[in-house]
């Protein structure tokens, strides 16, 4: 298949929730390096987003709830995939982050 990496790179269109399927495809193909490279991109973008939300405090909670939930869902999907494809390190990291963000962002787990 065409090289999606070069065609639409992370620096042009940041990896986000919609690219979790791409991770799943690479995991299914057994290409862990590629999968984990996309995971790294998604994580980095979501963490940055989450940190920004946190920096705003609770003041904009009502406006940002949708975005927060999407970010949270993205990490949860990565956790799910890490579990399915035995990526222990990623699974632990996602569990910790989800726990951390759930408390900080007032999101029920």
């Amino acid at each position, binding site marked *: *298949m065409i090289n*999606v*990496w070069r065609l639409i790179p992370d620096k*042009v*269109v940041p990896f*986000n929730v919609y690219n979790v399927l*791409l991770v799943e495809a690479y995991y299914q*193909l057994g290409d862990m390096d*590629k999968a984990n490279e996309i995971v790294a991109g998604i994580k980095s973008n979501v963490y940055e987003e989450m940190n920004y939300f946190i920096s705003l405090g609770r003041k904009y909670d009502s406006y940002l709830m949708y975005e927060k939930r999407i970010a949270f869902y993205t990490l949860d999907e990565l956790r799910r995939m890490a579990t399915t494809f035995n990526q222990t390190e990623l699974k632990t990291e996602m569990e910790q982050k989800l726990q951390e963000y759930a408390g900080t962002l007032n999101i029920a787990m």
Partner: protein
Amino acid sequence: MRWELGPERSYITKNHLMILDLLATNNWERPLYYAITVSEDNYLNLDSFFQMEGLAYRIVPFASQGDIFGRGGINTEAMFDNMVNKFRWGGVENPNLYLDENVLRMLGNFRSSFARLALQLIKENKPDSGASGS
């Protein structure tokens, strides 16, 4: 082809009438498509008759449940040919090219479409097509 609009739909609008009219009179002489960006509200419960062929769903006279999103199936042969051989991407990989938010959103859609295609190819046991180069 038989289907129901579904219990949740208590009205149809003119654009929906147009779709129903096309289905009733076109007799499959010309292909009918929904763009992948059309909102689900306009599907008229036809999604099980969709076959994804790239950035559009073709309405076909048979139902399927092959797609991971539960929207009909994916014609992997047509979609692969469209996405890989026919589409021109216009140098979007160039970081110096300005892309507005609409283009960025569309590119996100395209990347997601590649993933859907890859997953379907894997499901059809054609992993060589699903794998991307390095």
